């Protein structure tokens, strides 16, 4: 008998061999020969994790010194199969997915989709629902444009401060959305033939207060930056987009109007009850980044005008078309295209129905993607820093570009 303590065998932890990821340690640029053999061109991939690209977006730029000679936008990193999913789920089931297209403006996405389904099924939202839609859509426009000016200024190097001022205002509107629809960003508020819930008590007063206080934000913002010499020098004459080119490329929204083309679907198509409201369509004349920035600020002021009227005039009544069905919704066979003036441009939903509970074909016309197609034309000959603010002024959300 021995009282020797048997030591437990200590096992060396097996060292795991981790192979480095593909391409680690290699250079992320390519050097190309110049056509006239006077030097070299540098091809750089900006993105997909570049902070200025507003998400997962890549610009393959070919540089001659600091000047851009070629730019190729590469996207699809956030592709989520939205259209195919919508073809396999019910009409109602793809409503929450539309929130996730352009996640800053879920209310307008809901409206675009609801509008095309209503065209397909022949539903007519009642008066109060139309007012609710206009109120929420214009609030969404405010949310989107405040975010845009904040991010655009951040791209120019005004780090933090203007963005936080913008987000402070946006938060007030998101509070309104939360108390109305239950969620700050993924509102999922509109339904075919109306809206989901009626206004909670005290909402109108709160909304009136927010919209009345909003001009203070513009004044503050204008004092803060609009006269700033650096901002003017960085933006005026940069990224000029001519009206002809913009029309031919199918650009819509504030980008098109900054080039001086008077085209606003709220005026052209008169969807909803927009013809009852008196508002102007601000137009730019140079089509540069400064115009695109100012157009957004002016559009917010027009939105406030619409909001003031709508919040004053909203009638009482039902919020759903009595013909609308939640369960077993099957529109008759046919096709429909509903389009609205989203904060970023024309947002359209094209649907083909074959009489079954899910659409046969579902297609989104995303304004961000189509506005992005002219990025190279605007950036050629400018520097990388200019490309960043031009991309910022296009106003993209990658959830909508890639879908």
């Amino acid at each position, binding site marked *: 008998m021995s009282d020797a303590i048997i030591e437990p065998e200590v096992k060396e932890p097996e060292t795991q061999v981790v192979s480095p990821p593909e391409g680690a340690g290699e250079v992320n640029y390519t050097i190309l020969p110049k056509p006239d053999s006077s030097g070299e061109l540098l091809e750089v991939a900006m993105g997909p994790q570049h902070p200025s690209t507003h998400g997962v977006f890549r610009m393959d730029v070919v540089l001659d010194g600091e000047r851009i000679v070629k730019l190729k936008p590469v996207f699809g990193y956030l592709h989520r199969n939205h259209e195919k999913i919508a073809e396999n*789920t*019910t009409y*109602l*089931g*793809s*409503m*929450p*997915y539309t929130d996730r297209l352009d996640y800053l403006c879920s209310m307008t996405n809901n409206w675009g989709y609801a509008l095309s389904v209503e065209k397909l099924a022949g539903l007519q939202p009642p008066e109060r629902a139309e007012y609710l839609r206009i109120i929420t859509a214009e609030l969404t426009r405010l949310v989107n444009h405040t975010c845009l000016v904040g991010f655009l200024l951040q791209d120019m190097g005004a780090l933090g*401060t203007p963005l936080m*001022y913008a987000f402070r205002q946006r938060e007030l509107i998101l509070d309104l959305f*939360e*108390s*109305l*629809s*239950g*969620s700050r960003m*993924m509102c*999922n508020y509109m339904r075919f033939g109306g809206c*989901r*819930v009626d206004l*909670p008590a005290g909402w109108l007063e709160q909304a009136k207060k927010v919209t009345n206080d909003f001009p203070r934000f513009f004044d*503050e913002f204008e*004092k*803060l*930056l*609009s*006269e*700033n*010499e*650096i*901002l*003017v020098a960085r933006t005026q004459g940069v990224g000029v987009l001519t009206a002809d080119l913009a029309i031919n490329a199918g650009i819509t929204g504030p980008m098109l109007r900054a080039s001086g083309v008077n085209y606003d679907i709220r005026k052209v198509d008169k969807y909803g009850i927009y013809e009852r409201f008196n508002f102007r369509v601000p137009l730019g004349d140079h089509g540069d980044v400064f115009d695109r920035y100012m157009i957004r600020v002016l559009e917010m002021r027009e939105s406030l005008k619409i909001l003031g009227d709508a919040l004053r005039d909203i009638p009482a009544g039902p919020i759903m078309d009595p013909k609308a069905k*939640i*369960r077993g919704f099957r529109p008759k066979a046919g096709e429909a295209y509903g389009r609205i003036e989203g904060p970023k441009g024309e947002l359209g939903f094209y649907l083909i129905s074959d009489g079954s509970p899910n659409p046969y074909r579902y297609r989104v016309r995303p304004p961000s993607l189509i506005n992005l197609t002219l990025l190279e034309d605007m950036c050629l000959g400018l520097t990388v820093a200019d490309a960043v603010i031009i991309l910022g002024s296009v106003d993209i959300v990658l959830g909508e570009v890639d879908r």
Partner: protein
Amino acid sequence: MLGEGIIKGMAETARNFVGSYHDPERMTTVQYPEDKIAAKENARNFPFLVFDGDDAMKGLRCVACQICEKECPPKCIYIIKDTVKKPDYMGKMQVQAKRFDIDISVCMSCQICVEVCPFEAIKMDTEFELSSTDRFGGLLLDKHQLAKSNEYYQKIHPTEATEVDTRLAEEKAKAEAKAKADAEAKAKVAAAKLASPSQSPPPKA
């Protein structure tokens, strides 16, 4: 003058900086784990199952009709019907769910299950502190975890819950009245039959 705009902007920033220490409406930070902002009445996070009475499993309103399972866009609900029936709030025998699971890691809080439910059985919760160390089992809630009382529903969504309760009470009253009327009518017919058997239709040849 060059630089005037920059100075104006700086003055605005300074004004905001000072204001953020004085203006009560600007001091919005809440010390989160100690203090909490009450959830808004319409707030929604994940679904739960409503039960009436004290016993959660006996009082569940769900009748395992599987409409929510079919309509759920990300397909996060999983239901198996039980072979044993149980009475619902009106005393009618109804199917019940043997399993009712919701995978809240898949759920996207869209509230469509609530809208399609014809029995007011599934509602949206406002509880958001649901983190778990087990990302598969811990986020798959079964019907015992999902069941919450009608009083709890009243507490988190008072307006909506009152409306639902009134409607259910009306339906119940209507059903009871109808059952009573039916019983009376039956009794009358039976009495008539007893009084004059000759008036009843002759049996078929």
